[in-house]
């Protein structure tokens, strides 16, 4: 079992400089769904990931606004342009102030 809050980021292949690479980021997190009692949603403070920010070489390149209708242990695939060798960073934010991030070095050829 992985711990809650663990982030994994994987870059596919070995991208050449100037090319577009794909990556996937995964967060171990329950991403709670809304409970229902007798058909009515239960009003409480659900803990789910509501925002993900992707940055490359210090610049934000994508942002995802997410909801309870993303699966448990949310994972996101995305693309980024390898303009220069740099750090790919993915940060997940949840509704309880949680901030989970991981940075990987991309060594472009």
């Amino acid at each position, binding site marked *: 079992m992985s711990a809650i809050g663990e982030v994994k980021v994987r870059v596919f292949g070995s991208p050449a400089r100037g090319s577009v690479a794909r990556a996937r980021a995964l967060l171990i997190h329950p991403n709670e769904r809304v409970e229902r009692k007798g058909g009515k949603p239960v009003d409480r*403070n659900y803990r789910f990931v509501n925002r993900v920010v992707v940055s490359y070489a210090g610049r*934000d390149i994508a942002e*995802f606004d997410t909801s309870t209708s993303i*699966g448990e242990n949310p994972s996101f*695939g*995305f*693309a980024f342009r390898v303009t220069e060798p740099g750090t790919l960073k993915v940060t997940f*934010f949840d*509704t309880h102030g949680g901030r989970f991030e991981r940075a990987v070095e991309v060594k472009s050829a």
Partner: protein
Amino acid sequence: MRARALTRRSLLKTAAAGAASTLLPRRVAAQGTLASLAPEEPVDKTMQRLFGSRPIRDGAALIALELPLIAEDGGNVAMSVEVKSPMTPQSHVKAIYVLSDRNPRPLNAKFLLTPGSGQAYVATSLRLADTGDVRAVAEMQDGGLFIVKRSVRVVVAGCAI
């Protein structure tokens, strides 16, 4: 008095941060209460809320929306969207919206992209409440909107969502 002024200021500040849809980090730790979630509504209402009366064109030639035909587990349905478009500052895909027609809150996610994305490609796993259409809407830099739909048969529902 001073304390009150500061409170009001910080409130205004957080309100402004919430209103700005930029890539800057939001200062507010958004809450997960029902009131702060999107309302439960039919998908048409969500579409209306998001896009108003803006024309939405058929995106079959532009958008590849990949989903399984049959989802054994509605709690975890792999999805990917790829939009054929240049990703230059002058012309790129600004946002991809993914909506599930049968979910109580139809908007699954909104993906904001930039030219630095290189490709308008996103993937994730969805929770689907029931058998029905999943739609992807691409919003271009010039404001143009394109849509595609795919029907997914859900065997075991992703429960209340």
